[in-house]
C-alpha cells in the first residue's frame, strides 16, 4: 500500500483522499485573497521604523500625489471605532491608528489605498513619519525589561503546578542535573500571505480573510466597529496554512473595513511577507532552567521547571508549558514557575503546540542528559518513570500509550543497533548519532454546532463554521457523516469557513476533529433516530420491528435481522424531501453558559488536565538519526520515525500527513528556524523566506509515521484525540539527543547550527 495511505488498524478510519483534493490541484480552491470582488481597490500598509516612541508627524503629500491613490487611512480616522481587545479573537490590544504611541517595530502607521496594487505600494512607501524616539528594549537581558509572574495572567494558565517537597528531594537525590535551555523567536510563515478584503452591502460588512476563528472574529470585529455581529460576515473557505497565526484577528482587519466604508468600494490589502513579521504574532523566545534528581535506580524523585518568556508591553501573552511537563512522568516531587518578560515587541501568540514545543523541548533534552548522567538507555529511563497517575492531582490518564509508542518506534527505527558510546557510529566522513524524545499534547474539545441535511436523492449537505487549514477537517467531517448516514463520501458536500454557518470553535489547540466530528455525529444520529422511527411506524416499510437494532448502509436502513428499507422510500413515506438536523454539541462538564459562549465566539475548552475524572493527553515517541560531517559539521537528518497514539484516527491518510508535517516542523525547529532580533533597535532582521530558514524538500529524506491503535471513550463522543500539534513536540530534543550521541556536544540553545558544533 502507498505510504501516504496507511492501512487502518483497530479504531482507525479509511485513508480516503481529501474531499477538496481536486479543487486544490486544479487551482480552483479559492483562498480569501482569490475571491472575486467587483471594482476592487488595493491597500498597502505603511509601518513604523522605530520600536518605541511616538509619531509626531506624518507627511502624506508625496503619497497622495501618486496617480491612482484614492485614500490614506491613518491617525484620527479610527477614532469612532473601538480598540482591539486582547484575547483569543484578537492578537493584541494595540489599536495602531488609535494613538500615536509606537509599541514595537513594524507597527501600522497608515493604509494607502489606490486603484492598483502598484500605486498603493508606491504610495505606502512614500509616507514619511517623524518620530520622538525612545531607546527600545529588545528581549531578555536588554535594559528596561519588566518581569512578572505568569500564573493567573491568562485563563489558559492559572497556576504554577507543584507537588511534594522538591527542595528536600533534590538535595537528597543521588544523581542530579541543573541546566538551562533556550528557544528562539519563530514566525509561522504560512505560505499564504496575510490579507484582508472588505466590502459593505448597506450596513452589512463582508470580510474575506484567512481565519482559524470566523465566529470569534465576527464578534470581535463587530465590537470594534460598534455593530451588531449579525451584520458582520467573515468568509474564509480555504486557508493557506495557519499554524496559529490566523487564530486571533489583527488590527488590520478593522482598518481595511473602515477604508472600504470610506471609499464605498471593496478594498483588499495583502500584507507583504516582510510586514507580516511585525503585524502578526510569533512564537515568543523562551528560556528554561530544569533540575532533575533521581536515585541510582533511575527513578526521578525531584523535578523543577522554571520558564521565562518574552511578551509585549501592553499584552501579557503566556506560553506556559509547565502544565504538561509537570505531568509528563512519575516524578516524586514537582516545582514549576513561569515568568513573563516584557519588552518593546509586538505581542506574541499561538504557534503550533504553543506551550509544548518549547517547554517539552527543554524537558526532553534534560531527560536525555539525565539518562547520560545515570548511564542508562534513554528509552529505559523513560520506561522506569512511567506513571500510574499524573503527579500533580494524582488523577489517572484517560489513556496513555507512551510505552507502546516507544516500543513500536524503537523497533521500526532499529534502536537496538545503536552503539551508546559517544561518537562510536560512523560512515566514512559522517558521524552518526541517534536520539529519541517524547511527544505530548493535551486532548481538548469545545462546544460546536453543525447542520446536516439528507435529501431524498441521497445527497448530504454538511455545514459547520470550522476551518480547513490543511488538516483535512472537511474530509473527516464528511467521513463521519458518510459512516453514520450510509452515504458515499462523493455524495456529501461539506461547507466550512464562513461565520454565517453554524458556529465552531477556533481551529486551535488540536480540537477541531474532536469537536466538529462530535457535532456532526450528533446531527447524524438525530437524522437516524427520525428515519428509524418513521421506518418502524405503522405503515412504514419496517413496521413492527421496534426492538430491532438498525444501521444505515448504502442508502438503506438495515435491521440486524437482515430486513431493509430504502432511505428514499422512508422519506417518501414521511412526505418530506429532506431531513435536516441542527445539532449543538457540548462536552462533558460544560457549564450552562457553554453554548452561549460558542455563539459569542469565546468557546470553553474542556479536557487536558482540567477535567475531574482524568487527565487527557495524546502521546508519541520520536527517533531520529543525524549525520554530522566530520570536517564541515554540516548536520543532516536522513531518518526520522515517530509513533503516535491519539485515540480514534478518523482518516489514516490525513492523520499521517499532519504528523509528518509536525515532525518536519520539529526538524526545522531543531536546525533551521529563528527570527533574529537586532538588539539595538528591537527589530526583526531576517524578515523573508530567504533568511528565515524553514525545511525544504532536500532537508527531508526517510520519514516514517506509525499510528498506534488506541481506544479512548472518555475524551469525547467521537473518541478522537487531536494530533495536528503532537508531531512537532519533542522532535527538537530528539535531534539534540542525536547530536550529542554523535559528537558529545550537548546543545541547549535552539536552533542547533554548524557554528555550535565547530567550537
Amino acid at each position, binding site marked *: 500500500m*502507498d*505510504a*501516504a495511505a496507511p492501512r487502518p488498524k483497530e479504531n482507525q478510519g479509511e485513508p480516503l*483522499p*481529501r474531499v477538496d*483534493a481536486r479543487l486544490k*490541484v*486544479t*487551482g*480552483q*480552491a479559492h483562498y480569501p485573497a*482569490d475571491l472575486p470582488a467587483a471594482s476592487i481597490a488595493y491597500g498597502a500598509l505603511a509601518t*513604523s*521604523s522605530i520600536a518605541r516612541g511616538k509619531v509626531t508627524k506624518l*507627511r502624506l503629500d508625496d503619497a497622495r*500625489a501618486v496617480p491612482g491613490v484614492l485614500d490614506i487611512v491613518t491617525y484620527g480616522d479610527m477614532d469612532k471605532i473601538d480598540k482591539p481587545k486582547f484575547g483569543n479573537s484578537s492578537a493584541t490590544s494595540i489599536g495602531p491608528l488609535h494613538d500615536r504611541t509606537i509599541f514595537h517595530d*513594524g507597527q501600522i*502607521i*497608515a493604509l494607502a489605498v489606490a486603484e492598483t*496594487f*502598484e*500605486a498603493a505600494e*508606491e504610495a505606502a*512607501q512614500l*509616507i*514619511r*513619519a*517623524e518620530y520622538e524616539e525612545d531607546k527600545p528594549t529588545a528581549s531578555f537581558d536588554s535594559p528596561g525589561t519588566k518581569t512578572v509572574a505568569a500564573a493567573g495572567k491568562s485563563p489558559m494558565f492559572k497556576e504554577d503546578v507543584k507537588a511534594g517537597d522538591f527542595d528536600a528531594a533534590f538535595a537528597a537525590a543521588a544523581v542530579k542535573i541543573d541546566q538551562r535551555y533556550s528557544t528562539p523567536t519563530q514566525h509561522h510563515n*504560512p*505560505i*499564504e*500571505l496575510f490579507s484582508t478584503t472588505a466590502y459593505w452591502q448597506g450596513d452589512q460588512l463582508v470580510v474575506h480573510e484567512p481565519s482559524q476563528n470566523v465566529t470569534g472574529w465576527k464578534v470581535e470585529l463587530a465590537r470594534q466597529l460598534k455593530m451588531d455581529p449579525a451584520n458582520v460576515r467573515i468568509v474564509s473557505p*480555504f*486557508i*493557506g*496554512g495557519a*499554524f496559529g497565526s490566523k487564530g486571533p484577528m489583527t488590527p488590520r482587519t478593522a482598518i481595511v473595513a473602515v477604508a472600504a466604508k470610506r471609499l464605498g468600494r471593496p478594498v483588499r490589502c*495583502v500584507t*507583504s*511577507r*516582510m*510586514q507580516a513579521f511585525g503585524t502578526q504574532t510569533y512564537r515568543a523566545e523562551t528560556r528554561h532552567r530544569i533540575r532533575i534528581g533521581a536515585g541510582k535506580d533511575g527513578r526521578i524523585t525531584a523535578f523543577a521547571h522554571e520558564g521565562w518568556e518574552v511578551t509585549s508591553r501592553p499584552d501579557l501573552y503566556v506560553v506556559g508549558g509547565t502544565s504538561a511537563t509537570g505531568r509528563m512522568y512519575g516524578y516524586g516531587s514537582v516545582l514549576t514557575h513561569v515568568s513573563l518578560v516584557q519588552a518593546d515587541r509586538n505581542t506574541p501568540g499561538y504557534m503550533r503546540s504553543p506551550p509544548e514545543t518549547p517547554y517539552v523541548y527543554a524537558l526532553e533534552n534534560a531527560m536525555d542528559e539525565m539518562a547520560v548522567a545515570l548511564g542508562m538507555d534513554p528509552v529505559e529511563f523513560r520506561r522506569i518513570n512511567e506513571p500510574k497517575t499524573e503527579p500533580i492531582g494524582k488523577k489517572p490518564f484517560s489513556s496513555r500509550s507512551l510505552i507502546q509508542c516507544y516500543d513500536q518506534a524503537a523497533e521500526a527505527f532499529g534502536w537496538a543497533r545503536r552503539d551508546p558510546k559517544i561518537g562510536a557510529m560512523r560512515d566514512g566522513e559522517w558521524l552518526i548519532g541517534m536520539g529519541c524524545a517524547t511527544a505530548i499534547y493535551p486532548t481538548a474539545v469545545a462546544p460546536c454546532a453543525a447542520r446536516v441535511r439528507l435529501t431524498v436523492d441521497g445527497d448530504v449537505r454538511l455545514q459547520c463554521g470550522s476551518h*480547513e*487549514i*490543511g*488538516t483535512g477537517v472537511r474530509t473527516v467531517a464528511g467521513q463521519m457523516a458518510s459512516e453514520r448516514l450510509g452515504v458515499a463520501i462523493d455524495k456529501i458536500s461539506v461547507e466550512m469557513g464562513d461565520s454565517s454557518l453554524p458556529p465552531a470553535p477556533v481551529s486551535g489547540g488540536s480540537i477541531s476533529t474532536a469537536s466538529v466530528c462530535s457535532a456532526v455525529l450528533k446531527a447524524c444520529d438525530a437524522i437516524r433516530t427520525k428515519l428509524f422511527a418513521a421506518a418502524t411506524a405503522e405503515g412504514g416499510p419496517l413496521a413492527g420491528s421496534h426492538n430491532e437494532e438498525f444501521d444505515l448502509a448504502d442508502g438503506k436502513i438495515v435491521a440486524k435481522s437482515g430486513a431493509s428499507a430504502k432511505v428514499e422510500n422512508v422519506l417518501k413515506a414521511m412526505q418530506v424531501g429532506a431531513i435536516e438536523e441542527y445539532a449543538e454539541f457540548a462536552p462533558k462538564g460544560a457549564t450552562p453558559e457553554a453554548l452561549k459562549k460558542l455563539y459569542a465566539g469565546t468557546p470553553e475548552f474542556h479536557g487536558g488536565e482540567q477535567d475531574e475524572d482524568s487527565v487527557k493527553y495524546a502521546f508519541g515517541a520520536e527517533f531520529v538519526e543525524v549525520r554530522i560531517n566530520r570536517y564541515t559539521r554540516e548536520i543532516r537528518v536522513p531518518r526520522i520515525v515517530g509513533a503516535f497514539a491519539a485515540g480514534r484516527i478518523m482518516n489514516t491518510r490525513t492523520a*499521517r*500527513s*499532519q504528523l*509528518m*508535517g509536525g515532525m518536519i516542523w520539529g526538524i526545522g525547529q531543531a536546525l533551521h528556524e529563528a527570527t533574529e532580533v537586532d538588539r539595538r533597535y528591537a527589530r526583526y532582521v531576517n*524578515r*523573508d*523566506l*530567504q533568511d528565515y530558514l524553514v525545511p*525544504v*524538500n*532536500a*532537508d*527531508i529524506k526517510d520519514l516514517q509515521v506509525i499510528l498506534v491503535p488506541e481506544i479512548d471513550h472518555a475524551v469525547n463522543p467521537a473518541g478522537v484525540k487531536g494530533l495536528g500539534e503532537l508531531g512537532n513536540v519533542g522532535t527538537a530534543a530528539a535531534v539534540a539527543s542525536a547530536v550529542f550521541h554523535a559528537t558529545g556536544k550537548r546543545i541547549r540553545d535552539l536552533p542547533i547550527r554548524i557554528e555550535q558544533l565547530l567550537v
Partner: protein
Amino acid sequence: MSQPSASHVALNRRNFMTGTVSAAAAVPLLGSPAKTQEVTQSRARLREPVVTTLRINKQRHELSLDPRTSLLDALRDHAGLTGTKKGCDHGQCGACTVLVDGKRVLSCLSFAVMNDGKEVTTIEGLASSDGKLHPMQQAFIDHDAFQCGYCTPGQIMSAIGCVNEGHAESENDIREYMSGNICRCAAYPNIVAAVLQARGETRGA
C-alpha cells in the same frame, strides 16, 4: 528626525524601478521647481499603462497594465486566474511558479511586459477540457502531496518543469530540484512520491 516610514526600506522590484529612475534624474536637479516637474512627469510616464499580449493556457489575453505589474499580478488581478499564488513576492517560496514557453518561471520576479507574446501555462491550463487531470495533478492527489493546498499549484508546475528539465531521474534529484518550492505544511516526502509516479507520463506530455 525624518526617515522612510516603513521597515521595508529594502530594495524591491517596485521601489527599485521608481527609485532608480527618479534618483538618476533628480540628484543633480534638486532645488529647481521646473526640473522637479520634469521628474514628476517622467515618473508619470513610467506608470502609463502598456498594452501587453499574453497567451495564457492557449488563450490570447490583451491586458492594459501598469508597467510595474508582475506576471503574477497580471495573472491574478487582470486575467482573473487566481490559481497561481503569491507567497512572498520575492522569488523565495515558489508558490507563483508557472511555465513560460514550457520552462518554469517565478511569475513574481518577472514583469508581465517582459512576457509579451509568450506562452504561459498556469495550473488552470493543465487538466484537459473533458476534466481529465494531468498525471502530475492526479499523482498529487494519490500521494496526499499537500495539506493546505496553497503552495500546490506552484509545486505541480515546478514538478512538471523539473521532469521536463531531466531533473527527476532520482529521488535525490527530485528533492534537490524541488527545493525552490517551500511547503510549510511539509508534505515533502509525499511530493517526491507524486513526482516519481507521474514522471513517466509527464515527459513530453
